[in-house]
């Protein structure tokens, strides 16, 4: 029997007077691969951060493996949007992945163990970056940077892996590599993927959630025009020619 990994009940997040999320209810089963899409400002990242305890919730309840309230016992992996990170920070790939092993208690003179340093190699191998272990992070491409962040998240040995737009600013080949990697990782852990990439939704995820402050849709990853129009708030055509993509219709007072 599968366990519920995430249980969200009537979740609302309000920043100052702006409603970012309103009355979101959602359950994610253990081992599920959930994709979350929605327009910019639709609350996708806020939702992710609320689940991770990085954003204060205004009302509602979040349970991770039955546990309500921080800090969660289940280890959670997080791959942030890399645009928010300092790419020029003086660290090597190996050092960044090693930070996944840092102790939560701020103890003086904390040192990483030999076993942890060895384990870093395994994680880098898993994401196909062992040959780049000694590289400065500033010299990595977008795809390499994302894979390094995934390796760092894996060092936490997460039960749930959260990813915030891991394929943004990444070329097509790296994007496909990342999706293949996530597919492999999904055999071991639950994955929550926030993305703008509709291709990913159609081809890779097992379940889909559409957020635009409210939860517009939650179910099978089969988008139709009605859902997308409801989600983005304007008419959208979905044309599938083997590779699904979307075309925005000309319309007055355009949105999206």
């Amino acid at each position: 029997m599968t366990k519920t990994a995430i249980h969200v009940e009537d979740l609302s997040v309000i920043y100052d007077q702006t409603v970012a999320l309103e009355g979101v209810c959602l359950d994610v089963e253990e081992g599920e691969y959930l994709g979350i899409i929605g327009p910019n400002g639709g609350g996708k990242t806020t939702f992710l951060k609320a689940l991770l305890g990085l954003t204060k919730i205004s009302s509602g309840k979040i349970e991770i493996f039955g546990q309500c309230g921080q800090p969660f016992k289940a280890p959670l992996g997080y791959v942030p949007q890399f645009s928010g990170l300092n790419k020029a920070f003086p660290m090597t790939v190996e050092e960044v992945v090693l930070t996944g092993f840092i102790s939560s208690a701020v103890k003086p003179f904390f040192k990483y163990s030999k076993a942890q340093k060895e384990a870093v190699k395994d994680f880098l191998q898993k994401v196909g970056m062992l040959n780049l272990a000694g590289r400065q992070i500033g010299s990595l491409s977008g795809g390499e940077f994302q894979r390094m962040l995934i390796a760092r998240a894996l060092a936490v040995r997460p039960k749930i892996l959260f990813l915030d737009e891991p394929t943004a600013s990444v070329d097509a080949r790296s994007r496909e590599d990342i999706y293949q990697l996530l597919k492999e990782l999904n055999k071991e852990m639950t994955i929550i993927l926030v993305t703008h990439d509709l291709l990913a939704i159609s081809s890779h995820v097992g379940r889909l959630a559409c957020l635009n402050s409210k939860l517009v849709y939650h179910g099978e990853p089969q988008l139709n025009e009605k859902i997308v129009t409801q989600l983005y708030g304007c008419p959208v055509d979905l044309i599938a020619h083997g590779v699904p993509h979307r075309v925005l219709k000309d319309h007055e007072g355009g949105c999206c």
Partner: protein
Amino acid sequence: MMQALFNYQFLQNAVIGGIFASIVCGMIGVIIVEKKLVMMSGGIAHTAYGGVGLGYLMGFEPIIGAFLFAVLAALGIGAISKHTRSGADVVIGLFWSMGMALGILFIALMPGYPPDLSSYLFGNILSVTRSELLMMFLITLLVSIAVIAFFNHWKVFLFDQEFAGILGIKIAWLDNILLILIAMTVVALIRVVGIILVIALLTAPAAIAAMFTTNLAKRMTSAALLGIFFCLFGIYLSYQLNIASGAAIVLLSGCTYFLLYLLKRIRAKKSLGRAGSGKNL
């Protein structure tokens, strides 16, 4: 100069003070540059002027007043900017000018002739007293322990604060400690280069070190060594040419940064040109 160094205590104090200030400056300067807290540091430094004025008015050591104001400003800017929509920029600006205004007000309220505050505004390392030296030593010791003992945690926190938070590290606690360390560093530097010039000595050695090293610990060590060089050479210039020590140190470090930046650009252009001509062949 060497003979004078052995003969005059004020020169000995200046050299020792310069070394202490450079050590803290190297460590905290690199953090400030990497975390983009330069303006925040400027705000803290200028707010400290209010403490200098209060010290004169109330009759206690002005540097103690500067220390109290700097710490309160650091924590105040940190706390308020988290809860305002306008963000840190506005809060820093207000603390910056209000601190200066308070300093002016307190000095104006003093009976009799106002004291000369130029050594606090522009620094005068040659007039550092033994008690100020002791305070600089304590600050250097505390800052060094805080940075070295928790180095690995600082590294995680500086690179990705959110990730540190998810791992259960108390980031609010680290945030406040960092702000207090910056305030302490600013106070240690006030007598060396002064409130107005403090930003240059915090950033120039760290930025120069960043041009040559890609390792955080090495970057901090290099920045500290560069700071020592700038301070000692600045003292030498000040002594020999009879010019203001703070200005000499700041101009020396600033000019070195721009010169090295220019050389680096020229070198990069040359190697780009070589690569281009190689391709054409």
